[in-house]
Structures are given as C-alpha cells and as structure tokens.
C-alpha cells in the first residue's frame, strides 16, 4: 500500500473507521474475546507494566549516537589505547578484514 492510501486512511472519518473495523472483525465482541488472551500477552510482554505508562521508552536523543559521554564530549581520563585495551581484555578477536 502506498503513501496516498495511508494519507487517505489517516483522513477518513471516525464513522468510516468504525465501519472498517466492524468489517474486519476488530470490534466484534466474539472476535475480541477470542483474541483477548493473545493480545494481552503481547501488550504485557517484557518491557514494562502492561500499560502505556509502563512502557520503557528509548530515549531518542541517544539513538544513533555514541552511548557514553556524548552530551558534552569525551572525558579526558581516556585515551584510545586504554579504550582499545578494554575491548581486547574481553578475549574476543576483533580484527579488520578486507
């Protein structure tokens, strides 16, 4: 489905949305009851308390950024050799290829 379809859907009235949900069974009591356990399992899956307030949100500020000391800059008590040694001490082989 392309962008226009979704933009159209986004703009549809609440009545139209209600009809569509009825058509696909998403608001029918028997369907909801049969799916309730499955959906509850998803909604209460690991990561929070089962309600919107319990969702452990990712901080968008941190995404696609260095996960440490990014806000103001690197700390001066680190140097590249020290940092590299920390990784090597874990015992994994990390080497350049190709």
């Amino acid at each position, binding site marked *: 489905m392309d962008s226009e379809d*979704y933009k159209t859907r986004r703009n549809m009235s609440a009545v139209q949305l209600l009809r569509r949900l009825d058509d696909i069974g998403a608001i029918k009591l028997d369907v909801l009851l049969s799916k309730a356990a499955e959906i509850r399992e*998803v909604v209460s899956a*690991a990561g929070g308390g089962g*309600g919107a307030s319990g*969702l452990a949100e990712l901080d*968008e500020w941190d*995404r696609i950024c*260095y*996960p*440490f000391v990014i806000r103001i800059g690197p700390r001066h008590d680190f140097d590249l050799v020290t940092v590299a040694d920390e990784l090597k001490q874990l015992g994994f082989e990390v080497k350049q290829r190709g």
Partner: protein
Amino acid sequence: MGMARLVLDEVLAVRFENEEPDEYRELVGKAGGELAMLLRQADRAFPDHADREELRSLARDLAPLVRAPQVYRFLFLRPSRAPMHTLAHFCLSELGLPDERLDRVARLALSSSVCAANERVPYRILDAAWTRHMAFGDEELDHPAMSLSPIGAGVDLLQATTNDAYAFTHALPYATDFGRIPLPSDVDGHNLLGIAEALAVKALDEDDLDLLAEVLMAPPILRLGWTPTLSFAWEVLERVWNEFGFVPGPGIPPAPQDETHTQKVRRVLGTLYHTMFAAGLCCATIIACESVPSEVQQDVPGDREAPPGKGSAWKVNWMRSSQLVQDSLIFLNLAFTLRRALEVVDLVSIREVLNKAAECDLLEHPLFMQALEMLERIGESQQA
C-alpha cells in the same frame, strides 16, 4: 561485519535477556536499529561482495530480536514513537526479510492520528522522516524540518558540543538517505562542507573517532569532493583502524562493583560497537556514493611544526605526512589555533587567526565567519 557478529552473539543474543532485562531491551532497541541500518547501507554499497551471505546471516539473526512482541506493544499503545521501533523492521524488509503482519501494524501506527505527536528537535524529525520514507516513499524525505535543522540553520561552531555535532552528522544522512537523494538546490552545500571541516577538527582535537566517522560521511553525501583537512581526517581514521583492528570510541562507562562477565561484555562491547558501526556506515556511504578520498602519496615526512591541537591520533599522521600535505592543511592549522585562542578568549590571537584566514582566502569559511561575528559583538559591547 566482524563487530556486528560479535555484538549479536555476545550482547544481543536472547540468552542474555534475563540479565538486567530493562538494559538488555534498551540495547536491543538501540544497537539492533543501528545494526539494521548498517546492514542496509552495506548491502547497497557492496551488492556483489563476497560477504553478502554473511550479511544475510546477520540480518536473519537480528530479525527476531527487533521484531519481538515488545515492538507490537509499542505500536499498539504508543504510535507516536513508531519510527524508532520500526526502523529495524523496514531496513530488514529492504534486505529481503519481510514480515507482513508487522508491516501492516507498523504502517497503521505510522499513519495514526497521533503519528507526529512526539515533540522532536528538527534533526530528530528528519530521523523519523527517514524511517517513514522506507514505508511510504522518498517524498517523506523532503521535510520542512530540514530548514530548521543544521542543514538550514548551520552549527554554532565556536564552542560546539558533541551533541551539536551529532545533530549535524545525523541530519545529513537522514535527509538524503545516506547520499542517495541530493539535498534541495537551495541548500548551501559549500557552507555545510565547511561545517564538516570544523567538526572534523573538533573530533581530532578530542580524539573522538566516533564523531569523526560520522562527520566523514559529509563529503560523499554533499557530493563536493574532499578538502585537504577532511582527506587528512580520513587518513587518521583509517590508520587507527588498521593499527587496532577496529576503531576505538572516546570512552566507556565506569565498571560497577562486583560486575559479572555478562555485565562487563555489555558495558564494554555494548558501548564500543557504536564507533565500529559508525565507521562501517561511513565506509559504506563513501563507496555507495562513489566518493572515495584521494590516497595521500607516501613521501619523506615533512618537518613543519605541528599545529596546537590536542588529541593523539592525528599527530601520528601529521608526523608521517609529507611537507606538501602539511602545507596543504591550512584550515586544520588555523582551526586548531582558533580553538586554543577561544579556550582562553585570547582576542589578539583570534584576530591573528582571522588575518591569516583572510590571507588564505578562508574568511568566508563558516568557522572564521562566526569568529568574526564574535569579535563584532565584543567590539559592540565596548562602545560607549
């Protein structure tokens, strides 16, 4: 690819999910998204590479982690946050690993009546638009937030923070899909290349190779070629990569007391992976955009005095550079000198730097223009 496999197997693997589960899920969300992004860009850069099967294998192993029930939960209950939770899914779909059920739910969440109800700074709006473009097409990339982001508004360079710099380095690839789509014609690309130069000097000054790797995506994305300073910065990144076998980041969190092995791996590898991913994205972008920096010819090392930069990595390259290369690094030299002068607000030195910049026809460079404006403000403050 080696670091990607290591992170998948030793940090993100499901067997670690019960050890500090909140931290685990946060890392899966963040590193999983970044890995998916890297794989997508690598696939574009190396369509016929011998590592292609490994790339597919990584994508297959990543898929169940980033399409976990928790993702559905966010899409059901928090549609305004859908872009960050669907990024990995859409990247994997482009790699030939679709998931139709998640796709339908993701698109509905991205189209909900509150899909934009998350107050974001402009470059984060471009970030969300980039995810949306994978669902709805390239027109999502031409977003009005571009003019408010560093692409249109520039970067306050004189005392730019690392976050200021990341705002710039993120806005560019998101607005252009890592250089695939050119920036609008009214964007001043030369000004942006100048900003990239100034931020590369900041990264070299601070030995911050993570930031440097991201900044070095700017030349291929802007399609304006490599300046001597940016080529030199690339040489620094490449040399360190060759010497260590990977690219070290600018630091790691302190170890807590009684740290377990799993915690240590997560703390160290779960931090340092990012710089390798950034360097990988940088390489893939350079290759995909066919904008490889020119190789510096090996010659007898020059004897020019090193400029007053901090950091250690760039100094090794400086010592090994020919006099011709050292002489070409006028901007690097002046920018380091300006940074030192700004630290102590040495107005005489700042004025000298600007005079030299004028002699070298660099006065309209954004860094020196901003320094000039600063002198103007200071001068104005002294008027009776």
